[in-house]
């Protein structure tokens, strides 16, 4: 087992465990911190899969900005109250988990039919940038900047108390 493969499985295991904590944990703030751990381990996986640029962007945008937003909202809305489980009980939980298992089985059979891929791929940032700033991605880039502006204005208007 090469070092790459070992690191991959370690980070994959961390990602799965913290994802389970996100879903299973009662207190929303712990879920948020577990999600941060998941995002950072996914970033490590992106790096191992040959995209250092996206790996670092993931930490900057997702773990560093979006999750800070989540934590701020959690702390300011003071969600110290833990969720109380109601009498909805086992039927719903069992159905959800069964559906999840069906999803895994279906997509898993499709994935298993794909052949193994060769290794050794590293994406230099310069080439990613060249692709990003050439048509058609350039138009999508400009459109996404307008999207961000709209989201900025929308978030301020929606969250203002009047």
């Amino acid at each position: 087992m090469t070092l790459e493969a070992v690191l991959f499985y370690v980070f994959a295991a961390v990602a799965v465990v913290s994802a389970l904590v996100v879903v299973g944990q009662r207190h929303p703030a712990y879920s948020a911190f577990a999600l941060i751990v998941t995002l950072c381990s996914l970033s490590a996986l992106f790096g191992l899969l040959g995209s250092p640029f996206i790996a670092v962007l993931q930490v900057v945008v997702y773990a560093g900005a979006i999750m800070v937003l989540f934590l701020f909202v959690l702390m300011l809305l003071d969600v110290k109250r833990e969720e109380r489980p109601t009498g909805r009980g086992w039927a719903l939980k069992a159905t959800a988990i069964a559906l999840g298992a069906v999803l895994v089985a279906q997509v898993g059979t499709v994935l298993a039919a794909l052949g193994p891929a060769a290794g050794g791929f590293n994406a230099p940032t310069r080439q990613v940038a060249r692709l990003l700033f050439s048509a058609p991605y350039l138009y999508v880039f400009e459109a996404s900047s307008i999207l961000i502006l709209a989201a900025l204005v929308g978030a301020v208007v929606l969250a203002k108390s009047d």
Partner: protein
Amino acid sequence: MTGGPDLVTPALFLSLGLFAIGAVGVFLRRNVITVFMCIELMLNAVNLAFIAFSRARATLDGQVLVFFVLTVAAAEAAVGLAIIIAAHRHKDTLDVDSFNLMKW
């Protein structure tokens, strides 16, 4: 770095697993912010799938697409949390089931 181990297939299975965990979380959780976090988990699983396919096909389009998914996720998180704050102001609860005014 040529001829490395095949990391693409394990990555795709991991992406599938994370997506399934996120989907189960969206069904099961009652706190609306936790549901939102499970949606972000699903988006990240899809990002992982994009990167894995980008490596499998040795093109860079997957990475550019992940860039855009990141951007859209940021915009969506901002607006979604603003909506949650506004809704909380009205009903003083974060229970998903209590936002049922439009139910028939």
